[in-house]
Each structure stands twice: as structure tokens, then as C-alpha cells.
């Protein structure tokens, strides 16, 4: 029984980490800039590709950090691109979807069709044995990265002046602008940060996942599930939602594996029907 519990817990934790990593940056970007980024996967995959390339030259930890740092440049560009092409959410969806397709083309051009991963390097980190089950350190380090990113976002939003501006812009951009906040600058820096978070998550995920062509679209499925359940743009909601989805999926695989995907969608549908603005929304947000 203890063996069963521990193997359930390990797979619960790993999948939780996976979903959290794919949705954190997206939740942050939407939370501050109100841009629903369909190209989220592109930046996640970019992080993974870059980390895999860098890690072989400068080591795993530095490679992941370098990949995240390199992605900083793309954030402001992304913000300008989206704002130039669309004012309404629908236009922005088109613009970010176009970016997803463009990104796939560029990845093929630059990285070719191979599998990029740092898993072999991460193997060197070893693993710890818990009740007869091996738990690789790479997942624990991944968890540390996720926790650090969350802490960074929380401190920034709750404790700094920049965070105050971001929250003001999120709640009412027009009013914030009237009070002298440079909305454009806030948007630029928030996008830079959102994409940094996304790329850092992708880079850390390269420790257990291979990056390849076509992935940018695939990861959206789980990211969306967690955003819908958690309430779009709600950071803690996304954390809780990732846990809920992971628990449901893991239980499905253990008890009735045919229901793996269905179970996730059932959760999403149930949340949409009962609490359309997310499990943890305290009040309905104004549009």
C-alpha cells in the first residue's frame, strides 16, 4: 500500500509540475496584459531548444539560466507585435496564432527536425530512493525552479511599485493611464517577464522532456485546461488547477486508463458549467 501511495504521489507531482510549467507564463501574461497568447507553446519550446543547445556547452544549470535570459529579448518584441496587429481579443488571437505557425517554421529552419533535450545531462544529477521507488533529482530541481518563479511573480506583484502598476493596469488600464502610469511600458515589461517565465519553464522541462517540431501546439491542450479550471490570469488558481487536473489524470491512469484524456476534459466542462470564471474566482471580473 505504501508502495502504491508513493508511486501515485510521484506521478501526481511530476504531472502537476508539467502542467504548471506550461501554464504559469501564460497566466501571468494574460493576468497583466490581457493578451491570450496562443503562441505560449512557441516560447516554451524555444526555452527547451535553447537550454538543450546551451547546456552541452556551459553545463545544465547555466544552460537553463542562459536560455531564460536569451528569451528576455523576445518579450517586448512580442508585445509590440501583438499590439500593432490587434486591439480586440479576437484580433490578438489571430496574431498570436500566426506567431505559433511562424515559430514552427523558424524552429525547423534553425534547429532542424531532431529531438532536443538535456535529459542525459540531468541523469547525472542522480536520484533519491523513496520506499523502493526512484525519484530523479531533475524533477525536484524542476519543482524548485517553478517555486522560484512563483515566488518571483508574487513578490513582484504584491510587494513592489512595478507590481502595483501592473495590478492597476490589469484592473483598469484607462484609469491607470489617467493617473500617470505608462501603460505601454508596464505592458512591455510584463510581457518580457511572462515570456521569461515561459522560457525558463521550458528550459527546466528539457530535463525530462524532448523538444521537437510540432510541440508548440500540443502543449496548449493542458495549458488551456489548467487556465480554464484555475480562472484565467489567476496565479494561485492555476497552481491549484494544475494539482486538481494532475490528481484526476493520475487517478484515471491507475484505475481506468482508457479515461485519461476524457477525465481531464470532464473536469474542464464541470468547472465551465458551475464556475465559469474559474474555481477560485471571488468575484466576477468586469470585461
Amino acid at each position: 500500500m505504501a508502495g502504491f501511495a508513493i508511486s501515485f504521489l510521484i506521478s501526481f507531482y511530476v504531472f502537476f509540475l508539467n502542467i504548471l510549467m506550461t501554464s504559469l507564463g501564460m497566466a501571468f501574461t494574460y493576468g497583466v496584459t490581457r493578451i491570450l497568447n496562443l503562441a505560449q507553446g512557441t516560447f516554451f519550446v524555444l526555452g527547451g531548444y535553447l537550454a538543450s543547445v546551451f547546456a552541452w556547452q556551459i553545463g545544465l544549470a547555466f544552460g537553463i539560466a542562459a536560455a531564460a535570459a536569451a528569451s528576455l529579448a523576445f518579450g517586448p518584441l512580442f508585445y509590440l507585435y501583438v499590439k500593432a496587429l490587434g486591439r480586440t481579443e479576437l484580433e490578438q488571437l489571430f496574431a498570436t496564432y500566426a506567431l505559433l505557425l511562424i515559430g514552427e517554421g523558424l524552429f525547423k529552419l534553425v534547429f532542424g527536425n531532431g529531438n532536443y533535450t538535456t535529459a542525459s545531462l540531468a541523469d547525472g544529477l542522480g536520484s533519491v530512493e523513496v520506499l523502493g521507488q526512484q525519484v530523479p533529482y531533475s524533477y525536484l530541481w524542476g519543482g524548485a525552479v517553478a517555486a522560484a518563479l512563483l515566488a518571483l511573480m508574487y513578490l513582484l506583484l504584491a510587494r513592489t511599485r512595478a507590481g502595483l502598476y501592473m495590478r492597476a493596469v490589469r484592473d483598469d488600464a484607462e484609469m491607470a493611464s489617467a493617473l500617470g502610469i505608462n501603460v505601454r511600458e508596464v505592458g512591455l515589461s510584463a510581457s518580457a517577464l511572462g515570456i521569461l517565465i515561459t522560457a525558463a519553464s521550458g528550459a527546466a522541462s528539457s530535463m525530462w522532456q524532448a523538444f521537437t517540431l510540432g510541440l508548440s501546439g500540443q502543449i496548449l491542450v493542458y495549458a488551456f485546461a489548467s487556465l480554464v479550471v484555475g480562472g484565467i490570469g489567476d496565479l494561485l488558481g492555476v497552481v491549484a488547477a494544475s494539482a486538481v487536473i494532475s490528481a484526476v489524470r493520475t487517478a484515471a491512469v491507475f484505475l481506468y486508463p482508457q479515461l485519461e484524456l476524457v477525465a481531464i476534459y470532464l473536469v474542464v466542462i464541470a468547472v465551465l458549467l458551475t464556475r465559469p470564471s474559474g474555481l477560485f474566482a471571488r468575484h466576477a471580473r468586469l470585461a
Partner: protein
Amino acid sequence: MVSRRDALKIGASFVVGLGLGAGLASIISGRPSAASQSGTTTSLSPPTSSSATQTGQRKEVFKLGVVTFQTGPASIFGVPALNAAQLLVDEINKAGGILGAQIQLVVRDESGGPDKMVAVYKELVQQVGVDAYIGLISSADCLAVAPVAEDIGTTLTVFFDCATKQLVDQGMMKKVAFRTGGTTVTDGVSLAKYVLEVMPDVKTVAGLNQDYAYGHDEWDDFKNALLAMKPDVQIVGELFTPLFTSDYSAQISKILDLAPDLLHTSFWGPDLVNFIKQASARGLFQKVKVAFARGEFGLSQGMPDGQIVEGPDYHAFPDPRAYYVNRDFVNAYQSRFGSAPSYPAYHMANAVLGVKYAIETAAAVENVAWPDLSAVIHAFERLAYPAPGQYIIMAPNHNAMEGAVVGVSKGGDLEKFKFMYPAEVNPPVGVPSTQWIKSL
């Protein structure tokens, strides 16, 4: 008033819209125009393709359509396959082409699904007018294109890789369609036979496969073959995961929990890599032996030692020191593309050489400068020819009797590998595969 910013925005959306529109138009236009052309083929006048060259007349250019994945995760198979096609076409052209005709490749991407592949097929055959068509990795694509090819009936059509047994079991290749590779039956039976040789006492078996036709077929064929040859084997778990899952932690936990003697998987591409990496990190390979159907690709992706791997082809077989066809292929491929050819490259070689030898044989038999399609088909149906990976024997059901290489992984290579002879791992012509597997 339109401000400068608005004008810029309108301009930018115009450009983006134009791009989207053009993209949509190119997708949509493939269908109606091709469909309207297919109507004309029912009339007696031959289509405008160069396959209408009069029998006996020498050809200058031989247009060869090649369709395989160039984008998306499956390009891991498509790119080596196209590499092999380019390599062989260059070599054939250097040596004088097919009966003096220089081969010209017309390449298309396989991405987009079965409907798109039907449109691409019609475009290649009816608009570009290719002399022969080689293509398709996805089974769904083959199943959609085969009836269309047979219906149009003007162009030699060779499926080089798709593994579905339906093409044979349902008798879908009777006229112009051929396949120069094996099926999931070939994979499953050869793997099961090898497993029983190296693990004669195997008791409990579980399966982990992708949740679509290919994954289910591979698992069923392996499971049924194993149960037919060793009825006391117990199947303790059957797991299927969605294609392109990036996290297998739950499945790995479940397998560790079931602790079977053997796990079967037919994962490919990123799924195979993710599974190998995540399962190694969790120590699965120390506790469970894994049999990989079509796992040759994993050898270069950190495949742990001591696992059972089926090719279907493997670059060290037949021994390049003894068999010059393979030696030349491996050397040329390695020097041009920087790595040993993987099995899709071998499958492509089967197809390209099959087309060449079928045409040359038909010309020799008919004693004409260029044979007509029916003579080529007649020759292809009973052709046997040397390909880099093995000797290919075509059967009257238009499918190759292909053998398979199975071995044990060691340091990214295969050791103790064995070639399963075609007749051992394919049903006899006319016998449905399920019935044959039961009789093993």
C-alpha cells in the same frame, strides 16, 4: 480621420489577411480543381500526364512524386526518408537514369491529414503528371490514398512505409498500388518470436502503446502472436496514451506497480524519446525488460542496454563488409548526411529501387524502349530485387514479403541481432493475418 497608427494597423492586417487568404486558397483550391479533373479521367482521352508517352518511345525525364513528412513530429521519419530518396535518385541519374530517363523529384509534405493527402495525390498525378508516386508514412494516409489511386489507375503508386495490415487484409492494392515494406504483423510476429528465444520463461506481459490505429495494431499483433506461441503468458496490463504525450510518469508508476516480466511498446518519435528518458530516470529498465517494436530510432536517443529492439531495418544488417549494396548505401548516406541511415531511409530505398527495377524488368521482358503501365505492374507483382536492407520479394498481393531485424541494445547499437526471414513473419498470400497469427 484615419490616424497614421490606424493606417499602419489596417495595412498590417491587410498583409496578414492576404497571407492567410492565400494560404486558405491554396489549401481549398487543391480539392475542387483536382476533383473536377478526376471527372475527366473517366473519359477515354488519356490525362495530360507524361505517363501518356507512347509505349516504346524513350523518355527524357521521369517525374517521381515523393510525399513524406517534412514538418511536425513525424518529420523525424520523413526527413531521413527524403534524404534516402535524394541520394538514390542522384546515384541512379549519374549512372544513366531509368532506361536513359533522368529522374526528377517532385516533393510534397505529408502533413495535413488523409483528405489533404488525397488532394496532393490528385495534384501530383493529374496536374504535375508524375510518372510514379512514392509516399506516405501514416497508415491513415495510405488507407485514404489507396482507393483513390486504384480508382484513377493511371500511375504506379508505391507506399513506402505505412504499416497498416488493412491494405493487405482488405485487398486494397490490386491495380496500380504497391507497398514495398512490411506491416505491423511483420513487427509483432518477429518481436514475439525473438522474445520467446531470449526469454523462454516469460510469464507476465504488459503493453504501453499510442492510442491510435498503429499503436493498437502493433500491440494486438504482438500480443496475439505471443499468446499463440505460448498460451500460458498472462497479459497484466494494456495501456494506451494519446499521441505526443510529453509526460509518462503515471504510466511508468503503473508499470512499476504491475511489475511485468516484459513490457511491449511501439512508441516512435518524441514519445519514444520521452519514454526512454523518463523511464530510465525512474529506474524502470532495471526492473522490467522492454520490447520495442520499430524501436531502431531509439538506439540513437539513449536506449538503455539489454532491451529487445526490432528494426525493422538496421544499418549493420546485412553486414556491410559482405553485402556491397548496404555498404555503398550506408557509406554514401553517412558521408552526405552525417549519420547512419535509419529504417525509414531503408524503406524509401526499397520503394525507389522497386520502381526502377520494375520498369527496367518490364522493358526487358517486353523488349521495348519504355514499357507501358500494365507491363510494369505485371513485372512488379513478381519482382525480387536487392535493396540495401534486405532482398525484397514482392508478392501477388502487391505487398513486399519483408523480414525484420531484432536484437538486444548495447551502447546505442544492436548485438545478438537476428534476421527473421520474410516467410516466418508474414502471412502467406491470401490468408488473413488474424487467422495466420492464431495458427503460429
